[in-house]
């Protein structure tokens, strides 16, 4: 942290590539996401909802093409970018304070999950192959899987929300997949300014094969609709209610999508990044400690 060459700032390389390279168990020569079914099918995503899917995401280059449009940063021709972080500038959250150190010029780019390359390694390939075969069998377009990432020995499938329900049935019931338990369903808000900032994360567990996978759906905050998983996994009931309560994701088809942790008449969704933490300053004699979200932060 306090290396002589990088005092305090530790501007590391963008976490994206390192995340992919350290954990992707790949043969170096085999490459290109061209052999990934998901990315070869650009443009086949013909769901009527796909055009409006990106909503007002400011970074979407062509709103009409939405899901299948390659973004500039995704040279492989894959689906739109998944930004999972906020660009940060300067240090300590201080701006315009006559910085003479130069740290104010630091820019850290937002991270994006790097598409994994075949082979994914271990049983990941088997699961992916089985999934894509089952999708083809049931008429789900391969573009329903927008991206596959492998990081920290976990595999993540980024899905288009139009096909989420069909995919959930597949991963639960296909004899080669059998993800019987929806271990955790929850949300992540990547903050204002991030395209499709609200992510719904499904951590699925196969008790038959003793495997875990993650499904992730990204939606825009202006159109936060995701089909409910309750028909497939009844355990999703409360978990989706919590995600609605905390992040404001609307799960279409949920039997009773009401607040669960906050009072019924609460306004706002507390775990969104633009919702303040609250708190009051702590006063001492001659000094004051700000509320936790008002204090300076180091990164």
């Amino acid at each position, binding site marked *: *942290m306090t290396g002589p060459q990088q005092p305090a700032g530790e501007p590391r390389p963008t976490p994206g590539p390192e*995340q992919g390279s350290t954990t992707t168990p790949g043969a170096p020569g085999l490459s290109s996401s061209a052999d990934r079914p998901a990315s070869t099918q650009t443009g086949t995503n013909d769901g009527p909802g796909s055009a409006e899917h990106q909503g007002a995401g400011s970074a979407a280059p062509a709103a009409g093409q939405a899901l299948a449009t390659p973004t500039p940063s995704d040279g492989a021709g894959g689906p739109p970018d998944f930004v999972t*972080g906020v660009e940060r500038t300067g240090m300590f959250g201080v701006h315009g304070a006559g910085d003479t150190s130069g740290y104010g010029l630091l820019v850290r780019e937002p991270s994006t999950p790097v598409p994994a390359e075949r082979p994914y390694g271990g049983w990941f390939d088997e699961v992916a192959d089985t999934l894509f075969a089952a999708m083809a069998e049931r008429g789900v377009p391969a573009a329903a899987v927008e991206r596959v990432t492998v990081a920290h020995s976990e595999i993540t499938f980024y899905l288009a929300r139009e096909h989420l329900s069909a995919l959930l049935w597949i991963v639960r019931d296909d004899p080669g997949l059998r993800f019987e338990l929806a271990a*955790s369903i929850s949300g992540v808000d990547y903050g204002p300014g991030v395209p499709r900032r609200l992510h719904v*994360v499904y951590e699925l567990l196969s008790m038959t094969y003793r495997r875990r996978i993650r499904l992730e759906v990204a939606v825009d905050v202006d159109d936060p609709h995701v089909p409910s998983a309750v028909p497939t996994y*009844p355990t999703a009931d409360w*978990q989706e209610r919590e995600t609605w309560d905390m992040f404001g994701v609307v799960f279409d088809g949920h039997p009773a999508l009401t607040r669960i942790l906050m009072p019924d008449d609460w306004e706002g969704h*507390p775990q969104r990044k633009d919702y303040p933490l609250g708190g009051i300053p702590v006063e001492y004699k001659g000094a004051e400690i700000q509320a936790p979200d008002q204090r300076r932060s180091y990164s």
Partner: protein
Amino acid sequence: MTRSRTPETPGAVPDGPRHSRETRTTEGRMFTVTGGDWDDLVSEVGGEPAGADGGFESDERIIVNMGPQHPSTHGVLRLILEIEGETVTQARSVIGYLHTGIEKSCEFRNWTQGVTFLTRADYLSPAFNEAVYCMAVEKLLGIEVPRRAQVIRVLLMELTRISSHLVALATGGMELGALTGMTAGFREREEALHLMEFLTGLRMNMAFIRPGGVAQELPEGYRERVQAFLEVMRSRLPEYDKLLTGQPIWQGRTEGIGVLPLEACMQLGVTGPVLRSAGLPWDLRKTMPYSGYEEYDFEVPTATEADCFARFRLRLAEIHESLRIMEQALAKLAEPGPVMVTDRKIGWPAQLSLGSDGMGNSLEYIRQIMGESMESLIHHFKLVTEGFAVPAGQVYTAVESPRGELGCQLVSDGGTRPFRVHLRDPSFVNLQSMPAMSEGGMIADVVAAVASIDPVMGGVDR
């Protein structure tokens, strides 16, 4: 049993020697009942002549609101029961009374401080919350915890499992009227907490497990204390069999009650003792081992009755297994080694000792950072003020807590604070099965069913 939470309106207090207070609202008549005999209330309510403002019609819906402050709801849990006579036709639970925003608060503290919040989520199994969070942070960092730290974690987790199961037995017993079960359970739990205090410094919420290992080496004499605890527990556990297992009243209250078959468990995502009581030997310690659990020799008790009695027996059996694991962990601790990663940029400086003015950094450590090593001072300063940065990414880890799969989903954006922390708490998920367990049964059996789920509201609401 509370039948109304609406404030009393003036003039609503009826005259006469009544146990209940009646309020008339647009929703119908409401009664606030605290204590007293249920039969008295029923006869009183039903005894009035039916009419425009009279007693209940025979087909009138009666909705009983139980909690959130009620001795039999296992915490600040509110149950809404639609009853017909004493039979529950529909049951719903209302939660959120203990929501403290732990997940959000974590986003405003550094990674190490997150432990201090999460240990307070499910306050009866603090070691598990700490361990699962630290395992997630370590997965993001890509670091391996020293072996001795893993063994200490296992020791603490199993000790916590024992104390948590004892509370489950104790409060469950209390809620079903077995008060001696309560006193016995809390007596033994006190032994467990005393040992925890000796080992970590605090009885509960100890934040002893840190990213990278554990806070510090176990104190001198830990071996004898753990050994003594094992002996005490082994001598006292048979009492529970005498007191509860073979007791006809206890059996009558729990056998065949709150049945949740395996299919329902799978659909509702129920894990832990409730799932194992339905016959599936799913225990993450065996099926997806972590922290070196594959090296320990222990059984996963299962049952097939899927009722409250089976869950009670499983918890008792799991205490015995946890004692076995603790014994094996103690043997493994004979081998010395570091308890924290040696990377000075991650390992929190916690070389504590007891001084004349209380617990603080040890004198040797202060001498080192203040007088001997500039680097040490820099590391200390950077860690304590800024913390360490964690590479961007997302992970999910899971451990077998006393109540089932406790998962931790972590997202980092590369900074020194968590970007998102989510606890998949087994109490939260398992509590969804309350209606399936109790609809169609008696009101008294709802209490037994909830007690057998053993939800801890600190974990449910977080």
